[in-house]
């Protein structure tokens, strides 16, 4: 599965959803996040 996730954000409210999904996915797959 994914070994390293990059979460891109500009701090906008719409980015918060991406951050949340990215972090949840990272947690479930035990992947480090940048």
């Amino acid at each position, binding site marked *: *599965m994914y070994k390293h996730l990059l979460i891109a954000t500009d701090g906008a409210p719409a980015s918060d959803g991406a951050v949340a*999904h990215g972090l*949840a*996915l990272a947690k*479930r*797959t035990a992947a480090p996040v940048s």
Partner: protein
Amino acid sequence: MYKHILIATDGSELAGKAVAAGFALARELKANVTAVTVTEPWTAVIVGDAPLAFPVDEYEKSANETASHVLAGVTKLARKADITCATIHAKDQYPADGILDTAKKNNCDLIVMASHGRRGLGRLILGSEAVNVLTHSSIPVLICR
């Protein structure tokens, strides 16, 4: 996390990567999987003054055969990967519409698809159907390339 993943495929090589990625993610997350392939509505082709006759029933037969072939391939891969995967043929819809409708009707919470379809121009960053799905989807979309 995701509970029901919709994997869209047109049977192309790139869509195969999306199928593999979707299965891997489903296995990791213990999510349900549905695979969809979409066939477009029949349209008459007009060349000059003369419409090219391609009968509707022949078109539908061909579309059904193509979809069956594509979905049989997905089912085979699912069995190999030990994944339970439902399959849906969304008929008479444009690809993005068919994918989005299927996701909605089946309460999917993630769409996995390829960046380009069978007819996509590789030089574009994203194919038009991927752009349409991304633009109109209310759920996350994982684009594979």
